[in-house]
């Protein structure tokens, strides 16, 4: 594992081990494809997942590509940050076809556009018109109350339960 | 006194001439055709068995006696063919396909002549007339290019059949010096004990012709093409009536029982020549069924179905036992009735939907309910379901086969029969059931004329199913005239075969009672409400979300895909080898004589020359 960390560092990327069998690589947006294709070329053939973190205070989205090498039993988390305003990213479908689905999901839940991905239609949700739900500024409780809200209603007579909000 | 026989031939010829003059006025053409058919039928009522008429013809110094003779078989065939023709022409009064009435009348003239002729010259001439008229009729199909190809192929087959028959006639004439059919058959049966192979050879020449006309394996290849691409209004006649000429010819030679005396028996007391012929019938039946199962063009599907049914007929008559002959002729009649009906309803369906592809139709029953029920009765008959007419003959055929202890042939026929169920239901489902496409929103039921015809045909199929005695009686006379003992049949349909008895009306009564009970139970049960076809089980998904239309919720393409694998060897031989081979062969020949074909006179000249060469060779050999 250390050898990959070293190589990636020498490529000018920030890499460090996270645990016994995983390490992270921080790359700028432009170098993600390069990093991933390097990793794929050196045995990281399985694409595990692509996920997104909404760092709302920094005004950035963090994309995490997780790839795994079965040969050496190590896992690499390639992380990149993109600005939160009009977020867009290039697709990695040419490396792993699997990315198509993950990118579609992230587009749905975070509103990030993936250039080159042919199908970014709604996938898990239906008829969704609000903010992408997994963004930090989307308030699910408010949404739920607005849409499904317990208006106490006499015909049924069931009172809404007390709700406790933890700080 | 016997001039009515002449009128049977002359009337259609006159009608044909008149129709040819007014061929531009479609309705007039159709009307004259119908009237001629009706008049001919009327004339036929005055004809009775035993009438004959002959006149001498001086030809190249020799006198040719042209003889017309009415036998039991003739009159039966005449009745069923002319009656069906009348119904068909009545139905097609309002039809819009490119069928020409005068051609149909020419065929009618030939038809009557063939069934009555007792001399080979007349027979041959009528045969040729029928052949050429039908070839030209096939030309008028919906798809011009394809129907031209089909007509060409049919013509080649038909002409080769004619040569074969011509060769046979010539040989017989050289041997006996007479053209009389009865005299020649008597001669043949007198020498069959001495020269069995000779007789077999001569008879084979005739049988090739008949097999081609009836579309029996291995001469079945023209059938699907000609049926599928002929004018929709002509196909019913082609399938119902014209395929029976071959059967008639075979029956003509069957009474010889020449094989029985000349050749040893195979299994079950059947002479081995007949045994082979039984198997040819069985193969035809199975082949037709298997190929029909996988068709997407509905006319082709029913063309193969005709093939299969004629296979049944041939297998039955080849047994040459009373049950066999009865069953064979009965099935020929039933086939005429139900296949004619099916093609007539197809005529309605195709002219309204504009396609003959099964996968493009569907759900038409709501638009054409009467046609739907006619078709339903038709396929029920074709599948041999009591109380409709196909049941009796199929049942008799099984009896006949088992009686001769031919279990394997019977098993294969049974396979063909269950296979028939498959393709019949496929056609039924794909045309009438399933989802109704929005393309057919404007489709209307047939006109009043059509409705009358359809009701009549439904009635006929049910009537002859419930009361088969009315048709088994004349068949009994035919069987008797062939020198066999007819089956004990009562007019009300009590049939006794060797193996089991059957009282057909009883089945109908039982069905009537049980249907009444079924309806009572249905209506005393809780209420139902009618919903549209869009409201359908879609596993919980909402159809609109997925853009579901009737077209994309209708399954009729590759209906029997899984069993294709089972019949793969069958296809590999039949399709890849023989069929494609013949297809290519036709194409090459076709392109070669396309020019000749365009100019009719040249074509005749060409074939006349070829014929002459064969004539000379034949004469030299004899």
């Amino acid at each position, binding site marked *: 594992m250390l050898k990959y960390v070293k190589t990636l560092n020498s490529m000018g990327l920030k890499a460090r081990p*996270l645990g016994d069998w995983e390490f992270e690589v921080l790359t700028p947006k432009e170098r993600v494809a390069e990093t991933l294709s390097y990793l794929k070329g050196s045995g990281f053939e399985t694409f595990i*997942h692509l996920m997104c973190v909404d760092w709302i205070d920094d005004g950035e989205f963090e994309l995490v590509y997780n790839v795994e090498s079965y040969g050496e039993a190590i896992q690499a988390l390639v992380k990149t940050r993109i600005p939160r305003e009009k977020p867009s990213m290039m697709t990695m479908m040419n490396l792993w076809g699997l990315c198509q689905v993950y990118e579609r999901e992230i587009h749905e839940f975070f509103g990030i556009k993936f250039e080159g991905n042919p199908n970014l239609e709604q996938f*898990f949700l239906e008829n969704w018109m609000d903010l992408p739900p997994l963004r930090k500024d989307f308030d699910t409780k408010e949404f739920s109350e607005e849409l499904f809200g317990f208006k106490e209603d006499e015909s049924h007579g069931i009172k809404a339960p007390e709700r406790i909000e933890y700080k | 006194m016997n001039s009515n026989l002449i009128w049977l031939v002359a009337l259609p010829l006159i009608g044909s001439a008149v129709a040819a003059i007014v061929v531009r006025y479609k309705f007039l053409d159709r009307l004259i055709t119908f009237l001629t058919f009706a008049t001919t039928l009327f004339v036929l009522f005055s004809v009775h068995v035993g009438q004959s008429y002959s006149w001498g013809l001086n030809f190249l110094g020799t006198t040719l006696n042209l003889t017309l003779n009415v036998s039991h078989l003739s009159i039966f065939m005449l009745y069923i063919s002319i009656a069906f023709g009348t119904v068909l022409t009545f139905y097609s009064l309002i039809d819009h396909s490119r069928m020409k009435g005068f051609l149909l009348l020419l065929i009618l003239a030939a038809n009557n002549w063939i069934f009555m002729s007792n001399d080979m010259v007349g027979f041959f001439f009528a045969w040729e007339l029928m052949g050429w008229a039908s070839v030209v009729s096939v030309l008028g199909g919906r798809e011009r290019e394809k129907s031209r190809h089909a007509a060409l192929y049919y013509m080649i087959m038909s002409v080769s059949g004619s040569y074969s028959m011509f060769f046979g006639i010539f040989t017989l004439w050289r041997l006996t010096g007479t053209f009389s059919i009865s005299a020649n058959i008597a001669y043949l049966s007198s020498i069959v004990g001495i020269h069995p192979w000779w007789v077999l050879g001569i008879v084979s020449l005739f049988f090739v012709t008949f097999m081609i006309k009836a579309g029996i394996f291995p001469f079945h290849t023209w059938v699907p093409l000609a049926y599928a691409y002929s004018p929709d209004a002509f196909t019913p006649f082609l399938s119902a009536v014209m395929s029976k000429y071959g059967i008639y010819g075979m029956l003509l030679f069957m009474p010889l029982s020449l094989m029985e005396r000349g050749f040893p028996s195979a299994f079950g007391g059947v002479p081995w020549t007949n045994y082979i012929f039984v198997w040819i019938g069985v193969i035809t039946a199975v082949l037709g069924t298997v190929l029909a199962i996988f068709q997407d063009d509905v006319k082709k599907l029913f063309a193969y179905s005709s093939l299969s049914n004629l296979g049944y007929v041939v297998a039955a008559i080849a047994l040459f036992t009373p049950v066999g002959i009865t069953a064979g002729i009965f099935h020929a009649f039933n086939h005429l009735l139900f296949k004619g009906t099916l093609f007539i309803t197809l005529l309605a369906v195709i002219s309204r939907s504009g396609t003959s592809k099964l996968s493009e139709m569907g759900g038409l029953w709501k638009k054409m309910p009467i046609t739907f029920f006619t078709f339903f009765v038709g396929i029920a008959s074709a599948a041999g379901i009591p109380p409709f007419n196909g049941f009796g003959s199929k049942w008799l055929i099984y009896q006949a086969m088992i009686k001769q202890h031919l279990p394997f042939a019977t098993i294969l026929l049974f396979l063909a029969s269950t296979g028939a169920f498959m393709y019949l239901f496929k056609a039924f489902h794909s045309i009438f059931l399933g989802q109704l496409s929005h393309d057919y929103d404007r489709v209307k039921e047939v006109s009043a004329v059509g409705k009358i015809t359809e009701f009549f045909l439904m009635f006929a199929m049910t009537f002859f199913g419930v009361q088969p005695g009315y048709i088994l009686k004349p068949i009994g006379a035919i069987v008797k005239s062939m020198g066999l003992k007819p089956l004990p049949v009562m007019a009300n349909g009590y049939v006794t075969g060797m193996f089991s008895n059957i009282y057909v009306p009883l089945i109908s009564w039982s069905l009537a009672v049980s249907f009444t009970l079924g309806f009572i139970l249905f209506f005393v049960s809780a209420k139902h409400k009618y919903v549209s076809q869009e409201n359908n089980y879609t596993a919980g998904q909402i159809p609109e979300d997925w853009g579901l239309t009737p077209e994309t919720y209708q399954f009729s393409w590759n209906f029997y895909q899984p069993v294709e694998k089972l019949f793969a060897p069958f296809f590999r031989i039949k399709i890849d080898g023989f069929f494609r081979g013949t297809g290519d062969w036709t194409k090459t020949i076709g392109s070669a004589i396309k020019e000749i074909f365009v100019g009719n006179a040249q074509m005749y000249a060409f074939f006349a020359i070829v014929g002459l060469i064969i004539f000379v060779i034949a004469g030299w050999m004899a």
Partner: protein
Amino acid sequence: MELRPLNVSSTNKRKRYELFIGPNHPGISGNFSYVLEMEGHKVADVTPDPGLLHRGFEKLMERRLWTQNLALVPRICVPEPDVNEVAYCMAIEHLAGIEVPKHAQYIRVMVLELARIASFLFGFGGVGGTTGLYTAPNWAIGDRDYILDLFEWLTGGRVYHIYQYPGGVKNDIPDGWLEKLSDLLDYLESRLPEYDNLIFRNPIIRDRLKKVGYLSAEDAIENGITGPNLRASGVNWDIRKTQPYLVYDELDFEVPITGNGDSYARALQRRLELEESIKILRQCIDQIPDGPYKVKIPNPFEFRVPAGSYYSKVESSRGEFGYYVVSNGDVKPYRVYIRGPSYSSGLYYAKKAMNGMRIEDVPVWIHMMDICPPDFDR
């Protein structure tokens, strides 16, 4: 060789129709839907329609305390909920630097392996249900219930246990539980030959399952297939062996590799792994050390996990179950991402695999791939 009937013309307008497998369909595993575009009896195109079970777990977890989420996570994969709890706790423990006592680790292994057996028995039911051998699910699910009884004794819940806790487990093994477990393992072992006779030696099952949905090793790696399905394709990869967590490195077990890559291999793979799980459980019963079953963690309202991120994963009965946990040092997780093993196979690979498949093989494929919709719907 593709056999074509006589008169197939390419101009045919209407060859295709739609068929819906799910959500309300006996052939689908859970609330999920494949919309098949069919040509005859064959599938020409597939559109998966997920999200019917989408509950927004990842959003909800951001709103709850670290330990409150323990009630939420098991609901992500219903047939085998414990992997969620363990993976989630492992991520927290790694970030917070908590060392779990050996005793607790053994308990975790036992829970995991029991859950795995339960899940495999459920899978036998899948084999039977899709092929019409209804005796198999009746037997297998009946036997699975004995395991659920043990779970109930141990954790208080039949299906959702909510038993793991950062730093250990919620309570210790009750007296007599291990003996009962040992009896159960004997019973299960005695049942295995009957399952073999009923399912795996059945010639029709073999015909139905063999050559259905063949998946080569390369394709499996490329398409992110994990777990028993990957091993059924011949790749020797089991997280318990290659990247051992808990105490798997102290236990002696084999990882069977069937390697034919078809549905039968996948079924057989599960059957063989079931035996290994029984072996692991036996060793756990023998080797389990005494000691505390948990280390104390602070009051949940004050429990703050240091900032950082970690991807923890567990080998579930379907494959790699991963939790990517991001903390910003608060009492609540900043972001939790759940990687379900069915994601790649159910949503992406299905499109490739089902192409050209016959309709009767579709449910077989779905159940042999063990596609569990809640784990990708989340």
